[in-house]
């Protein structure tokens, strides 16, 4: 019962082998991590899988957690890295099965159009390059530019630049839509 301890202390306790602290921590953080995973991937199924990756790796990663960054910042960094890994794997996989992949992609696209399921949000997020999307996902999750720069490991100026690029993208998209 560690209900009243902050996440960073809990994480430090868990890093030191405290099982109860780890249980509390993961229980408390799961929804938040899932939310970010969804924003990074854009699909519920992908997000569930990504969160699973993170859950599986978290105990081992946590051993190197030293409390230098707030736990949330640290965990978000973990999420972003896990999302990158996943994309890289997906890209390799797609290349290996490219013939079938094209067919599958076309089939899905057709299906999607008929469903009218693609809303502005999905279009907008999908139209963005990976780095802009990651940055936007963090900023939309109420991270400051400084925190996002910390998580992504790029200068704060880059974050601001990416956000303005993303805004340009969105504005262009909006214009296309209204025309």
């Amino acid at each position, binding site marked *: 019962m560690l209900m009243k301890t902050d996440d960073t202390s809990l994480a*430090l306790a868990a890093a030191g082998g405290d099982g109860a602290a780890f249980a509390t921590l993961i229980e408390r953080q*799961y929804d938040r991590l899932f939310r970010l995973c969804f924003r990074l991937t854009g699909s519920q199924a992908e997000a569930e899988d990504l969160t699973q990756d993170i859950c599986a790796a978290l105990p081992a990663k946590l051993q190197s957690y030293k409390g230098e960054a707030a736990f949330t910042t640290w965990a978000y960094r973990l999420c972003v890295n896990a999302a990158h890994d996943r994309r890289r794997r997906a890209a390799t996989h797609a290349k290996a099965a490219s013939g079938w992949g094209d067919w599958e992609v076309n089939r899905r696209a057709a299906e999607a159009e008929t469903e009218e399921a693609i809303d502005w949000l999905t279009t907008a997020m999908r139209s963005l390059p990976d780095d802009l999307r990651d940055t936007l996902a963090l900023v939309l999750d109420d991270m400051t530019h400084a925190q996002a720069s910390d998580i992504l490991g790029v200068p704060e100026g880059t974050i601001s630049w990416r956000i303005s690029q993303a*805004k340009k993208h969105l504005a262009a998209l909006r214009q296309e839509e209204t025309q």
Partner: protein
Amino acid sequence: MSDDLDDLKSLMSGATPPPDPARRAENITLAQKNFADLQGSRDGARLTSDRPKTGLVSGVRNMLNTLTSRAGLTASTAIVAVGLVMLSPLGDRVLPQSPDAPYAPAELRKPVEMSEPVVEAPVIVEHTAPMVTMEMASDNMLGAPAPSSRAKMSAPAASGLVMEPPVILPEADTEAFANADTNPVNITTESPVSTFSIDVDTASYSVIRNSLTNGQLPPKDAVRVEEMINYFPYDYTAPQGDAAFSPTVSITQTPWNPDTQLLQIGIQGALPDLADRPPLNLVFLIDTSGSMEQPNKLPLLKQSFRLMLGQLRPEDQVAIVTYAGSAGQVLAPTAASERATILNALNNLGAGGSTAGQAGLQQAYATAAAMANKGDVNRVILATDGDFNVGLNDPEALKDYIADKRDSGTYLSVLGFGRGNLDDATMQALAQNGNGQAAYIDTLSEAQKVLVDQLSGALFPIADDVKIQVEFNPSTVSEYRLIGYETRALNREDFNNDKVDAGDIGAGHQVTAIYEVTPKGSPAERNSPLRYGSAETSAASTGENDELAFLRLRYKAPGDASSQLIETAITTSDVGNASFAAAIAGFGQLLRDGTYTGDWSYADAIALATRTKGDDPFGYRTEAIQLMRLAESLSQN
């Protein structure tokens, strides 16, 4: 443009699905399984946590941040000086090169501590401290700490060679803590009576927690053992009937000395029915000086008070007075039911300016006096980082002012925020003289504990001027020592003098005092018997032989001028079990100096605390054990 971003944000919030409960449970189970597997593959002794290893640069930075300003100056001077030698044309010949020296930031502290403070230190530091230099310096310091004095001498001459300086200086640290020397061992035949005022403050524990979680051992003077012990709730019997409180006494084996015993005196305050509590008039006196701007100060304060507001009743009244440069009333007395008005006023507070503590206090007391109605409880709640830098700076004069006001029926509680210039001494002086409680709030959880869970105790006094006097029986006890309460000692004659102020107990408060007593004839006696002074004293002949001591408690009902007396004998049959309080008492003494704890170590404290943790519904004790582990690791540096 930003419209798109806002749109996107609201769309995103709407579109984010809740996690699938089945997958959630599955994933969490997976995480816990992996966690458990990982633990199994390690060594058995997981109670000690390793000292965190940090990168070299951040290690140096952390070190500078945690040193006091004086030591920090010395440290950075030494590092820079060595670095300068390395950069100077002759430097690489002055010091032996050891490019393969492994990174080991912990080792850095040793050479740093060895070097003496240098008079011209500030000058050098202002000019030079580039990171590059520091890295080179630390590499080589491992190999050659000795020539640093020579290096220092060459530093000023070489300073022209150094690049533009990103100066890393620790923030000036102006903390002051109230404490006194550790209580000595008393010989029963010479001074059989021990008198002190109770203390319900818990600030010291929070300060210690804050230090430890920041990776440094707390300053010794910040450790007040009684406040650490009183931080935790214990299982004492509640008083019966109309009694304001009841004492619980137990005698246990001393964990750190097999030949002595611990006498634990616990006092449980009555918890009156809160349904018909009198209305409260609260004046929040908030420090909005420039130093309060940090996130763990004013913003945390606002959140804390918001938590507390939920505990108030519609008939309660709240006013807000701020002080920064000049004092001002921000919120006129407002009924607690007007939540929006109060929250608004709270949210609009901003930090800036210097601190006119005295003017603020005067205005707060004036506001409280205007709000007072018959039967109400009036309290000023001062929230500050302790920086009283304008007007009256003398804690003594401030004390007198508050003591004056105390007699008018308005109580004062003090909440400390933030570190760096926490003036613990002033805060203690204010709260002790204002008949209130001093708490230190470092996290929102602590705010929850002090302002929500234990609010009734903090706000409703049930007994004023509670004094404890213990008379030991020289025929059974040869020596005794009171653990903690150094700042609360009273003269023997003050016990019966109702004019002498002492601490108060609030509704449901608990107070614990622990004596280490040496039974007559025990090998643990620290004083040898006198050759010429061993005449039988009268007390020895009259005392019952199974009586260890006689406990007297004096208290006043709130508002009364004369005190009531509770007396009870403590006999050798009052044997209890080893307690968590004993573990905390030991922990506190280790942090303080460990004069009386012998070979007993943090590991023993952890073992005892883990064994006696018991039911820990709020996790306070678990947290304490974690702190002990941190202290153990830190003390090995």
